[in-house]
Each structure stands twice: as C-alpha cells, then as structure tokens.
C-alpha cells in the first residue's frame, strides 16, 4: 500500500503551496537566471512518499521514504531515492541518528543478498540456485532430520512431541506478522531450539 502524503510540511507559514519544481516562485528577484540555476532544484519534487519505521534500534523512529517512478495504477512502487525522518512522528519529530540518516545506503548496500545461493559441503564457493531448488532441498533436509530425531514420548511415556536436532533463530527486525508466521511454523514442527536476538 502506497501512502501518499501531502507536502504540507514543505513550507513555512505565509508561503504559497508548492507542487513540483517551483523554485521560481520563491522570490529570486534580482538573481540572474544563471545563478538561480546554480541552486540545485529541490530533489524531492516529483517523488512519492511512504511512511515506514527505522529498522535499527527500538526507538522506532518514523521515517519517510521518497520513491521515484512509482505508478500506483500499474502497482509499481518505484525506487527509493531518499529517506529522512518523519516530522509527524511523536518520538523522533523528524530527526534521525547517524544510522537512520544513512538508511538509503542500507537499502542499496553492495553486500545485500540478491539471489538464492548454496554452498555445497566441502566447497569453497557459492552457487546460484533457483528458489524451487533451495526450498525443496531445505524441506527434504528438514524432513530427513525430523523423521530420524523426533521425540514423540519421553522415557516416562509422556507425550512431548519435540524436535531438538534442528533449531531456529528468529530475527530482531522482522515484523510482528513475520514473527507470528515463523512462530506458527516452528512450533507446529515441534522445534524447541528456538530463540531470538533479545539478548545480544
């Protein structure tokens, strides 16, 4: 869902509403054209805005992501060109720390993962694989391990239905909805070796 928010914060009081590049409306009287051109056009003009939350620490600062090339009708969100603090947010009031201020570099980090990869036993390199290959292979490895090591009853005959030989470390920045999905799946398999990043 794309949230388009009006640019009501663009201007101080007493200024006219601004749409698109309207630098010319801002009292450049007496400045030669060439000079006016030397001031960079406002770079957020013609972008669409989306509200989000900084993914780093737990302050939960509101952020605004500015995207270029969004096309609502075609269901395209475009590409984020700039990120800064959400001035409407009660906690951060538009501010961001050095990490939050650099979020665009996180989105565009060179070392982001892009394709499913596998490293075979004993190999010294990654191989790109299809999602289908990776997911089927993982399901197979899980099933083989689970079937071999699942404990339905303990020594006293109590039903315990646990699986201890495979574990899951959940994240610290995924959404609650992802966490719930993960919780459901992990618990339904009987996994007990299950933890998150609360301690580090």
């Amino acid at each position: 869902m794309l949230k388009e928010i009006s640019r009501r914060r663009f201007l101080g009081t007493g200024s006219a509403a601004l749409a698109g590049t309207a630098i010319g409306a801002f009292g450049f009287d007496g400045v030669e054209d060439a000079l006016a051109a030397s001031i960079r056009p406002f770079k957020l003009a013609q972008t669409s805005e989306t509200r989000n939350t900084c993914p780093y620490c737990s302050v939960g600062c509101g952020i605004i992501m500015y995207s270029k090339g969004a096309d609502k009708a075609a269901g395209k969100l475009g590409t984020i060109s700039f990120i800064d603090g959400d001035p409407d947010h009660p906690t951060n009031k538009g501010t961001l720390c050095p990490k939050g201020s650099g979020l665009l570099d996180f989105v565009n980090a060179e070392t982001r993962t892009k394709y499913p990869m596998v490293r075979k036993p004993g190999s010294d390199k990654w191989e790109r694989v299809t999602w289908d290959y990776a997911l089927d292979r993982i399901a197979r490895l899980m099933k083989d391990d689970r079937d071999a090591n699942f404990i339905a009853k303990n020594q006293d005959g109590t039903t315990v239905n646990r699986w201890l030989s495979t574990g899951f470390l959940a994240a610290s920045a995924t959404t609650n909805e992802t966490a719930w999905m993960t919780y459901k799946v992990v618990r339904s398999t009987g996994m007990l070796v299950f933890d998150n990043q609360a301690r580090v």
Partner: protein
Amino acid sequence: MADIALELARQSATAGGITGALAPKDDFQVSKLIDTSKCIGCKACQVACLEWNDLREQVGVNTGVYDNPHDLTENTWTLIRFTEWDNTATGRLEWLIRKDGCMHCADPGCLKACPSPGAIVQYTNGIVDFNHSACIGCGYCIKGCPFNIPRISKTTEKAYKCTLCVDRVAVGQGPACAKACPTQAISFGTKAQMKQLAEKRVADLKSRGFDQAGLYDPPGVGGTHVMYVLHHNDRPQLYASLPDNPRISPVVELWKGAVKYAGIALMGVAALTGVLHHTVMGANRVTARDEEEGEKIQEGRK
C-alpha cells in the same frame, strides 16, 4: 521563518565589489544555532549532509580518535570534532564536541578573496554559497576564510563547503543537518529566533554552573549565520581550535584592499609618467653626429 526570500546581497569579484547588503533586521536573516551543550557527537549531521547532498566520502582508517573523516573535505562539509579536556577548575573531564563547518559570516572572507565574479554569493538572508559554474578553483576562498572551511576537490578542481542547504531553505525547509539532529542541538530559524533560543540555553547552562556560557556570534566577521552555544564562551579555542576572535586575516584585507588599489595605481602612474615624459621630452633620438662619432670610434679613428 516566513518570507525569507532568496535575494542576492553580494557577489564575489563583481565590478563595484559589494552590490547590496544583508536584510536589515535579524528577522529577515536565517541562522543555524549549534548548541554544543546538547550535542552528543553522534554524527547524524554528517550522514544527513552526505545523503542530502548526494556526496560520497571515502572509507578511511582509525587514527586513534573518534573524528572521522579526519578533516573537512570537498565531500565532508560538516564534521564533528572531539576534544577531551581536563577542567582543572572543577577537576572533571569534559568531552567538548563541536560540529565544524561553514559559519556563513556576515562579512565573508571567502567572498572577499574570490577573484571570480559571482562564484561566491551572499543572499540577503545571510547564506553564503558557492556557485560552481563560476568557480575557477583558485583556492583564494581558503585564504580568505578565518575558519579554514572551503576545500578544493582534486577531481572537479572547484571549491566546496556547506551551502546551509540553500536548496532546502529556498522551499521553506531547514538544513538537512538540523532536520536530522536527534537532540536538536542544531536549530534553524531567523537570526532573531536563534538569538532568543540561545539566551534560554545560556541561562540553563549558567544555572548548571557554567558561568562563562555564552553565544558565539563573533563580531570580527560581522557576526555569523551559524552560531554556537558554548559552555565556555570565554575560551572558544578549547573547542577544537575554534578561533577566539575570528576576523578576515589582515594580510588578506591588505591584499584585497590597499594593495589592490595601490598596485593598480602604481602601475597606472608608471605608464602615465612614461606618456607624459614622452610628450614633454619627445623621443630620445640618435643624431647624425652620434653616428659619425660612433663610426669613428668603430674604425679606430678616435
């Protein structure tokens, strides 16, 4: 910060020199106030500056301090500088943290030194900006600046410094660093507002035992459009060598003032003297007698 229009006050190296003046009242001038007592040195301002201005700095090394990069560069227009100071009066350590960058002087030394017309401009609201299409990369601004701010790029060979986010101010927003600053140690508004805010902050600091707290708005450069609240306003030098009483170097003043006029005058006088001399005296010609006498000598007749 209503009605702060971008109108030119001055341009560098323009015939007649200064063509205008700052807006008459503080209400029409903008200012950034940096409160060192609120600054936690987090460098959000540095990151925000790089991101807003689409700048890329190189990944450096650690040299035993927190300052990174180690100095302002053509890409680093603002830099947090850290000073560890043992306050002998109180016996307590103080970590003085100052955001360095262009001070946007009311009397900008860079503009005074710049030889290229319009390469450095000052708007009536106080912002001093570099116009890169006119910049010739001579580095005179560096000599003119009392705060050691401008840097010349090795690649573009042009001078760079903080623009006070003139592109943001032009649409009614504050600079990117002030927007980002988590503790609001950086504020932006009219100069009058910022002075008022500073007064409040200074009073708070005085109540906490900083008797010498004050506003750094150095008169030697006509005041600045980036001001500091300092806990030790009596000793600005403590803050990573912030000048105690900055002014455009007298050497630069001499160079761009007396020497310029006197030099041109001297050269003009010399040329004029020649013309006058020639008019009065006429040409110094060799006479026929001279030729004869000369020839005589040549031929050994004399």
